[in-house]
């Protein structure tokens, strides 16, 4: 009976191995460089095939479908980590200073700034922003330790807080596509497909890309992942297996 106590830590180790979520492995079918420095997120332009991208060093860009800069907002932030665009505005989250910057879609002029205080780690703040159509609410997510998903009101104030700890080691991007919420994890190099109503993980895919920071589905329904360290676009075939 006394030996039983020593079995428990090993059972704990073994259990740890099975707690890790199993994911399907996928590979990109093509890749190309972007000239956006240190890209940290990407979203679709609502009216054409272009994208909006933000960079770690605080800039907002519009880029073409090949990732080449078309124009740049006359704005210098701290560290832009998430971007989302609708018919009228481009929304940018700044991680360190906990702000949402709202830009006019056509002129890329800053029209509004909202401060959303959050006392977590300096580099573990807001990392992703997108619009959850199922709930008709904007959502923003913190990166890690812990991972929070905040549902926002129309005025961008916080409406609801959901703890997503355990889903991944971190979250680096979010997007809404085909009636689901999609999250990207940099440290786990995994894309998660979530039920947008209860935020439960429905499926997960692992991929071999260094420092993935941006996630979007383009107008051809292809999944696009942007690597920060590599400054590169990676295109995946969809539907995903």
């Amino acid at each position, binding site marked *: 009976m006394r030996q039983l*106590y020593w079995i428990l830590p090993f059972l704990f180790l073994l259990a740890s191995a099975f707690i*890790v979520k199993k994911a399907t492995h996928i590979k990109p079918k093509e890749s190309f460089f972007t000239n956006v420095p240190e890209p940290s997120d990407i979203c679709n332009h609502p009216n054409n095939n272009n994208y909006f991208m933000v960079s770690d060093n605080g800039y907002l860009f519009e880029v073409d479908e090949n990732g080449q800069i078309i124009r740049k907002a006359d704005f210098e932030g701290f560290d832009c980590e998430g971007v989302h665009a609708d018919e009228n505005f481009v929304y940018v989250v700044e991680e*360190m200073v906990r702000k949402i910057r709202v830009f006019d879609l056509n002129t890329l002029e800053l029209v509004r700034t909202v401060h959303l205080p959050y006392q977590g*780690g300096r580099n573990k703040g807001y990392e992703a922003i997108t619009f959850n159509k199922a709930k008709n609410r904007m959502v923003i997510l913190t990166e890690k*330790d812990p991972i929070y998903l905040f549902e926002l009101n129309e005025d961008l104030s916080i409406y609801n807080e959901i703890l997503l700890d355990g889903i991944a*080691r971190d979250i680096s991007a979010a997007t809404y596509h085909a009636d689901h919420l999609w999250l990207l994890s940099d*440290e786990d190099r995994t894309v998660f497909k979530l039920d947008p109503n209860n935020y439960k993980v429905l499926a997960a895919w692992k991929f071999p890309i260094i420092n993935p920071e941006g996630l979007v589905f383009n107008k051809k329904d292809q999944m696009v992942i942007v690597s920060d*360290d*590599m400054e590169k676009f990676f295109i995946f075939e969809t539907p995903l297996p």
Partner: protein
Amino acid sequence: MRKLILVVLLIIAYVPTNAQLSLGNGQHVLEITGGVSTYYNQRILKETSDNKNKDRFRLRDAQLQLEGRYKNTIAYELQVDFVDLASFATGAIDPENPGLMDAFVTYKGLGFMDIQMGYGKLFYSRSSLVPFQYTTFWQRAQIVRGDMFSRRDVGITLMSDFWRQRINLYGGVYTGLGELSIRGDNDASGQPEFVGRIDIAYPSRFRYRDIDDKITPIPMFQLGVNGRYANKQLPEGRSFPAFSTGEFGLKVINGERYLYGMDAAFQYMGFSAQFEIHQMHAIPQLENDALFQGLPIDQTDGFVLAGGYVTQLNYHYRPWKSIISLRFEELDLNDLVPGNSQRLSIGAAYQFRGFDSMLKFQYFRILREESIDPIRWTEQFRIGWQYNFK
């Protein structure tokens, strides 16, 4: 006792670590982090020794770190270790674990280059630059612990990066007294030390880490070279401040001192490896300098060489949250003395919450020792817990 250990392990496993805090006003952000680590040490002594004073529990770290940024132009850091603060004011400073660890301000407003001023880690030796909490070991390799060359100093550093941060350049000038510099005055020579480093990584930037905790899907490499120079010729009758020359009398010498180093790192799919080598070329100004070991000038040619290397292999098996490391090191403290020392270390870690809550074990074995650095033990075991609130 076994029940007690089991209970402690289970408590550790479920202690939350999301304790990092930051304060901000939209332009200025201040982050508060820290950590505590403690271990039990057990030595196997030589038959000639009966002093078991190192068989004990020890609090290694009790750190508090304040890290801030003002707009895009100023970054700063202040880090202290309360365990070592008491000895910092008067006694010998442990260069691996000094009381004051960082106190610097970085100006980032130039864009093409950052300027760092104050006291902090020198950009010399990749292994020294790896934060201690990101390793499986309880002690750094002998050659990079700060006994042969200083790891911290007061001065100014210029730093820049190119090619998507794959190339990093550092250059700076410092007092040359290393960790002792914080006490105020320079030595009687009044001369500084110059330090420079360049490293290049491929296919992406490579952070100063030993363990591949991201299970990198593409092989990554980094190569670095660094050098430092000081010409501290003391006026006759003067001596260096107490403790500044270090345990082996090599950190600061009365004369010219060149130090060169090269390092390489690799990581892929949880495997990682590091290699690092250093050589010191010392030219003491006095023929009767202790470094010459009493030998005549025609035998020494007026200079002394010292150096060594360390190589390390690591594997991180993420499903089991486990890391294992193997390290081999060789050190020659003086080429005028025959022989060198060799050590082997095995490190193992279990991550309850990544590096922020980790059980660490290290086994040391002395394979060979140098006559001018006798050691009273042959093997050593160290096991403990590292907890960071960050």
